[in-house]
């Protein structure tokens, strides 16, 4: 794996205005343009009215539009907001051999999810994200990050009809993800994020996730930046285990909980780079720049600036699009302001670090 400092420099824009560089990025999903949903519904209802070619054109247009929206917000590493994906498990389950869909299941109230069933051994059939990556990289001026649902979440949020124990399915999926990441790297990807929201529901399984990550990075070149994203959990149960994970960056949702858990990580031994959630993904209220700057300073209590990445708490897809954009724009402004304060010495990062305090 790359060391955090060297790995980050490739993301510094040539015209970056400050000596300090806080890498700004996203977790992944972004609200879909209303017209895309409309075209999809028409395509699904009547393949003659909106044919496959028109649907493909619509997705490409949306991907181009949201990638550009990320760049306009000033982000250093971008993606296309997952315009080609509807749901984080379903998208992959439709591309992995061995999965079958047997109907929707209740999550809560009248909210349902097409929970897939593993009905035979899982296999790698065709690239999952190559098209998404190559298109996005082709239209982006900034480096592209690729979010992938992690094996633990893919296994936990599926019915397993085949494997004897949950870990066996999880490891089998990790091997497939290794194959996918290898192909993405061949295509040019250098920043990959594994999303593991299910880890929060069973933090005692952190060793299984650790073994999965070892399998996923096996044979992947050192200069590929590997990030692990988790959200909505008790982080005290997975830290310090994550220090031993073969990752460059750990992305965590903390704005939503008002940084109550930040001290969990502030023992001075935090090993990977910290990608800190600094805007809430669940409320459309747009945080003012000054508030986000304060959130970024929370991250500096754990790691020095050269190890701090700044991102929203989680994917932004449930927000109104204007709110999502405004949050990203303010987030980037806040990061640049904090960089300026660090450059000028107005902000002393060493003094903020909890572990260095007397």
């Amino acid at each position, binding site marked *: 794996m790359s060391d955090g400092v060297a790995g980050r420099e490739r993301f510094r824009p040539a015209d970056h205005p400050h000596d300090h560089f806080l890498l700004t990025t996203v977790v992944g999903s972004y609200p879909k343009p209303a017209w895309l949903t409309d075209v999809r519904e028409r395509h699904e209802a009547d393949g003659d009215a909106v044919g496959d070619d028109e649907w493909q054109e619509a997705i490409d247009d949306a991907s181009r539009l949201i990638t550009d929206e990320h760049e306009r917000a000033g982000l250093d590493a971008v993606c296309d907001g997952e315009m080609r994906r509807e749901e984080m498990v379903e998208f992959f389950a439709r591309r992995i051999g061995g999965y079958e869909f047997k109907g929707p299941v*209740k999550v*809560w*109230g*009248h909210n*349902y999810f097409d929970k897939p069933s593993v009905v035979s051994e899982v296999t790698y059939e065709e690239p999952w994200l190559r098209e998404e990556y190559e298109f996005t990289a082709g239209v982006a001026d900034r480096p592209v990050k690729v979010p992938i649902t992690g094996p633990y979440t893919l296994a936990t949020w599926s*019915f*397993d009809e085949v494997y004897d124990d949950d870990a066996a399915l999880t490891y089998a999926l990790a091997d497939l993800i290794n194959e996918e990441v290898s192909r993405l790297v061949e295509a040019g990807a250098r920043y990959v994020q594994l999303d593991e929201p299910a880890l929060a529901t069973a933090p005692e399984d952190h060793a299984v996730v650790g073994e999965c990550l070892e399998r996923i990075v096996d044979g992947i070149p050192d200069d590929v930046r590997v990030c692990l994203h988790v959200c909505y959990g008790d982080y005290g149960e997975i830290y310090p285990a994550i220090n031993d994970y073969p990752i460059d960056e750990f992305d965590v949702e903390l704005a939503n909980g008002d940084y109550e858990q930040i001290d969990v990580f502030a023992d001075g031994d935090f090993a990977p780079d910290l990608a800190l959630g600094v805007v809430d993904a669940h409320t459309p209220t747009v945080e003012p720049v000054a508030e986000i700057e304060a959130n970024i300073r929370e991250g500096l209590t754990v790691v020095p600036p050269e190890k701090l990445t700044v991102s929203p708490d989680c994917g932004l897809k449930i927000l109104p699009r204007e709110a999502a954009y405004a949050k990203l724009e303010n987030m980037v402004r806040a990061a640049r302001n904090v960089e300026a304060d660090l450059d000028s010495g107005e902000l002393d990062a060493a003094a903020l670090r909890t572990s260095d305090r007397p």
Partner: protein
Amino acid sequence: MEHAATTAGLYPLPDAQRERLADLKGRGKGGLVDGDESADVTAAYDAARERLVAVQREAGLDRVVEGQARWDDMLAHPLCVHENVRTGDVVRYYDNNNFYREPVVTGPLTEDGDLAADLSAAARLTDPLQAVVPGPYTLCDLARDDHYGSFESFLDGVADFLAGEVAAFPDAVETVFVLDPSLVTDPPDDDVHERVRDAVDAVNDAVDADVVLHTYWGALGERLHAYLLDTGVDALGYDLVNAHEECVYLVQEYGTADSVALGVVDGQNTRIESPGTVADRLSWFRENVPVSDFETVYATPNTELFYLPVNAFGDKLDALAAGVEAARAEVAE
């Protein structure tokens, strides 16, 4: 020894009503069941109930439940519709990717009659009928108390409330499944075991029907199991899908009630057990415990069934009924 194919209720909504109710109620928190539904919503639930009763009949189950289609908040439902309870945040339902509105008890849990009303509607479709209720400890565990002040008085209050609810059940109810998974997942401290036992007895004593106390997602602790054996319930339930060794150990060491409920079909996996597998699990239990002649062996899915897609749910009922048929044939030989 009677074998009875049955279920722990809480079924998935049939396809037609799932769409219809989402349209009528919306997908947010505000539209969920509160005990005061519109005529259209009531009609949709009537249709769901009719369908769910028919599915059990077609499968050939020996006990038929109402289906609990209205239970938006799963086992927390009886509190979520009570007038002295407000529904709070949407919180996680055990260790599942499911969520419910946390009931916050703000006043005395007076008699409500919500469960009896649904059962009376079901009794017009099928007689006899099996009721399903949460256990008093589980209901406390899923809720928050802003009224009773201590866990002990909250538990007593919830037990009295449930006793009042089951006492109002229609005569058609011949069996009551009391679902108490929290006794396993978040067990009570030793010093309240006696009180938990009394709470179960309060519910048991209030109804003139066979009462089955069923737990799942593991096995009961030994001490708590012993206390529950002291209750007057007719049957204790065991989750043989998740904890067959531990459950058999409890029965080997401490015995059990006159009847047992055995969770032999996985309520949380779309893999459909063959009738042979169901029969094997039932005979494996019989062969491994010292008691040979139970009054009734209730064969059931280990959990509620709302976790499954509708088709898999139907297949599970078929597998269960066929498995019990095979077990009966085996015993007869």
